[in-house]
């Protein structure tokens, strides 16, 4: 954005004071995250879009194929959400009681009690989606060519005995109800943490795939199903990824520094001092309230 271009790079640390970080602090916190959570790594992105105030190889952070076993939208039907934060009189962030229940839910699907009308709604939606998929194969609008048209004779002439045929493992989706219609597809997300120069905070981008359908890219509406409904389309919108190009879901950073400041204060009141190194680990912790069903890795428990 223009505002971002005109904002000077933050040089002095504003971490304690305002909850904001400099690019150097972003790098330090990123190195710390990568060290403690090996599923995260630095990425360079498109070199023509690289930011000069960040090292070439450390433009942003990425973790791939994070499982998302169920839809946030469904979780909220069971009413496990509560409002915990009310940041300075503004509309509060909504969080969910998700602690520990990811594992339990695998063994105990009945925990996800949906009332019948909701089940019907989802079932109807699944059916109509399936119908779409069957009739149009890959493209919703039916504009794409039929891939079978590309079949060629002669390509199978070379028999190759050295190819291992791997049967796709039929992994039972843990969240299925008795009826086959309401199988919840497992999705995977790629998460990206970008440095936002204007807000001087991390900026989370995410993009999702349907794991059960050959890693097909989710539609925007589908991705919004995995965002806490109070944040969907408000704090979470489609935004162009500054290092890659295409648009992805992004958690708007306007409130990050305030929340971070709050965390620092709470820690101080408890006699602890938060180090700027832990910034991203804390950040991921509070962002979890926006995307409660996406199980990304954070290995450290921060006690506040």
């Amino acid at each position, binding site marked *: 954005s223009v505002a971002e271009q005109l904002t000077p790079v933050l040089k002095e640390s504003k971490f304690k004071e305002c909850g904001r970080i400099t690019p150097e602090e972003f790098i330090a916190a990123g190195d710390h995250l990568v060290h403690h959570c090996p599923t995260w790594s630095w990425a360079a992105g498109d070199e023509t879009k690289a930011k000069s105030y960040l090292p070439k190889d450390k433009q942003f952070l990425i973790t791939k194929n994070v499982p998302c076993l169920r839809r946030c939208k469904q979780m909220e039907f069971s009413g496990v959400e509560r409002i915990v934060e009310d940041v300075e009189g503004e509309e509060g962030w909504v969080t969910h009681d998700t602690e520990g229940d990811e594992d339990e839910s695998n063994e105990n699907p009945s925990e996800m009690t949906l009332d019948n009308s909701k089940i019907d709604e989802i079932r109807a939606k699944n059916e109509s989606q399936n119908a779409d998929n069957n009739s149009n194969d890959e493209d*919703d609008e039916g504009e794409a060519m039929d891939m079978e048209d590309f*079949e060629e004779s002669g390509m199978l002439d070379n028999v190759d*005995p*050295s190819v291992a045929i791997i049967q796709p493992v039929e992994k039972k989706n843990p969240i299925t109800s008795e009826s086959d219609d309401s199988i919840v597809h497992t999705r995977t997300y790629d998460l990206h943490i970008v440095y936002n120069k204007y807000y001087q905070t991390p900026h989370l981008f995410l993009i999702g795939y349907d794991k059960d359908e050959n890693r097909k890219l989710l539609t*925007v509406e589908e991705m919004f199903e995995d965002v806490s409904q109070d944040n969907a389309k408000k704090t979470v919108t489609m935004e162009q990824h500054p290092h*890659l190009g295409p648009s992805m879901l992004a958690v708007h950073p306007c409130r990050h520094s305030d929340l971070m400041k709050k965390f620092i204060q709470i820690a101080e009141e408890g006699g602890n001092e938060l180090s700027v190194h832990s910034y991203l680990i804390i950040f991921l912790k509070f962002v979890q309230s926006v995307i409660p069903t996406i199980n990304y890795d954070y290995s450290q428990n921060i006690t506040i």
Partner: protein
Amino acid sequence: MSDKNKVFQYVQLKSVVSPDFWYKLAETKLNIEKLNENSKNIFGSFTNFNSQNCVVNLDCTAFNSHFKPRINSFHCHGTLLNRNTIESFKDSDKAELLKKEGEQLIDNIVNGLCLEDPTLLVPFILLSYADLKKYNFYYWFAFPASIDPVFYENSTPQKLVDVFPQQDIANFNDTYRNFEDQRLVSFFLCNEKLEIKLLKDLIRCDNLEGNLKEVDLNLTYFSFSDPSEYENPAWPLRNFVFMLLKLCPNLIGKQIKVISVRQDSKRTLTPSLIFTLDLQAVKINEKDEIKWTGWERNNQGKLLPKMSSMGESMDPEKLSDHFS
């Protein structure tokens, strides 16, 4: 042994293309290449860290001039052939493209380039057509490999942790993971203490008869970073063995041990395997006799291209719906 005479088999690589790759391809096509149909060198990568499905990943960094894969990932060297029309995409001679790329691989092996940069053993072709009106991308990957030689597996694979002492594995893992130029540990050798030996230091392309002549094959492990999580190794081993047979005629008729280096999510080498290959009955074909294989199959196992619809993240019209 019951497993005797079991043909040694590899799991084919599978392409996974990120949306930002198509975004960059479209940008390059519109602003730079325009109607140019010349082939272009691009990069992909594979990883043996917590890997699934033997995947080769492509994203927008494929077009970077200085390609650096993520940590514990390795270069794949691609030739992008982006066609201007769906007809020329369809009519491209797939067998000829494969042969051309395969012969390039042989040249790189014979002139020693693959010893200097072993990741050149993982080439690919990406044949594509971009329908930029509808943001549909048609594409087909090939990972070239010579069908011959076919050879046999002498025993079931062993686990690395069952064969080597813990301390040797820990030392190896430390050196391996922190190797400055990751490309050199894509394919390499190990001695009986799991010390890394580089291909370029042990094999020469100007004295084939002398290659690995003095080496005790019982104490030598041909090693590679394996993106497979299955009992079979992934495709890249195929070209490695092909190169070894081409450059080290001493190996023909012998048995070799291969370490498939695999890391789990905690970066330990617990999933790593050791294969024993019987190279007795191998036949080395001349360049023009070689039959090439490698076009990717779709999920139904058919030899067909794939298509990605990127309207949702690229079409300004669709995107504006979500901003309103």
